[in-house]
């Protein structure tokens, strides 16, 4: 695959962030209440999403994961309540 340029990477970060905020309850203000100080909420939520969709659980936004994130879908979150 062509080397990912910084714009591509930046774009991918946006896609991942938005998707996890919308559907996996990632706090957008970065003030994710963490039980353990050193856990990265994005990685945790990304693993949760990969597990839900039967993808390889890596915690990294690989091509298959991004492909799923770019598919049109229902706006209701996969894990949180929608009330």
């Amino acid at each position, binding site marked *: 695959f062509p080397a990912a340029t910084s714009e591509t990477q930046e774009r991918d970060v946006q896609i991942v962030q938005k998707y996890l905020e*919308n*559907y996996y309850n990632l706090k957008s203000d970065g003030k994710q209440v963490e039980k353990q100080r050193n856990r990265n909420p994005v990685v945790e939520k990304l693993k949760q999403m990969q597990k*839900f*969709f*039967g*993808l*390889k659980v890596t915690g990294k936004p690989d091509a*298959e994961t991004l492909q*799923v994130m770019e*598919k*049109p*879908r*229902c*706006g*209701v979150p*996969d894990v*949180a*309540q*929608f*009330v």
Partner: protein
Amino acid sequence: LTQGNPRWERTNLTYRIENYTPDMARADVDHAIEKAFQLWSNASPLTFTRVFEGQADIMISFVRGDHRDNSPFDGPGGMLAHAFQPGPGLGGDAHFDEDEMWTNNFRNYNLYRVAAHELGHSLGLSHSTDIGALMYPSYIFSGDVQLSQDDIDGIQAIYGPSQNPTQPTGPQTPQACDSKLTFDAITTIRGEIMFLKDRFYMRTNSFYPEVELNFISIFWPQLPNGLQAAYEVADRDEVRFFKGNKYWAVRGQNVLHGYPKDIYRSFGFPRNVKNIDAAVSAEDTGKTYFFVANKCWRYDEYKRSMDAGYPKMIAEEFPGIGNKVDAVFQKDGFFYFFRGTRQYKLDPRTKRILTLLKANSWFNC
């Protein structure tokens, strides 16, 4: 099921269509919504009555962007719709993003398909990890809209069984590592192997260990469900799919023009052959073997005619693999025959069976 198990306490619910999308005729919108409710009432004790004014349990509307429910839509693509879990006021309501194009056919996005999903939320269901379920989060339109067994189990867990004398059942999504997994057809395609079962394909590739499972219609929406045989003619970059006495040819994701054709005119099968069980083409010889019940035919792809002396009994031509074949493909010069949960690796040159494997041995279970 949704956290907290929200449900309607009554089973006779009302709905109201508050406004219409300009993308479709009003009657088509009415029909799509009505059919979507019918799917869920057929599988549960719920009934749905349409009202035309005032507050209904389930209010349906087409809106765009921020529509003041704290969950703004995002323009074309992305979020297509959402619906709220059972409850008063906004509870149960379903919103469809007017920035999408709504259709009553294959083109994006089929309103009936999306409404069937959203009403599942209105009744208390959350998303399913089963790609064959209506409640799967991503939009997939496979041509028909039906509750899978997973959807039926979900709605009946909340509201109990249907009052229909015969309980509805739905299709189950194959599980790659189910030891009882069998296949309808298997073919190579451009160096990969594609396993076909019901409405689904499964495929593996070396750089991604997870088995990819999705609807066949993702690639070839024109193909019917329940294919029975498939094989690749590699030097023509063509894959042929068989069902009944018809077959389709594809090149990549394109179904070739003029298909389906019938197997009698194209291959010379006698009229008493009603369908093909399995087929494989030996790349090195251009000979294609067709398996029908306990017999096999051999077709010459270059001469485009059946070889003389066929059909033969499978047990005579390929001793040891039994007298019926579900699926077969060729890889690296070997034939892999599938019958139920068994798989036979065979050297076509010596006609000797080299290994006996489980049908799903290709899936790294």
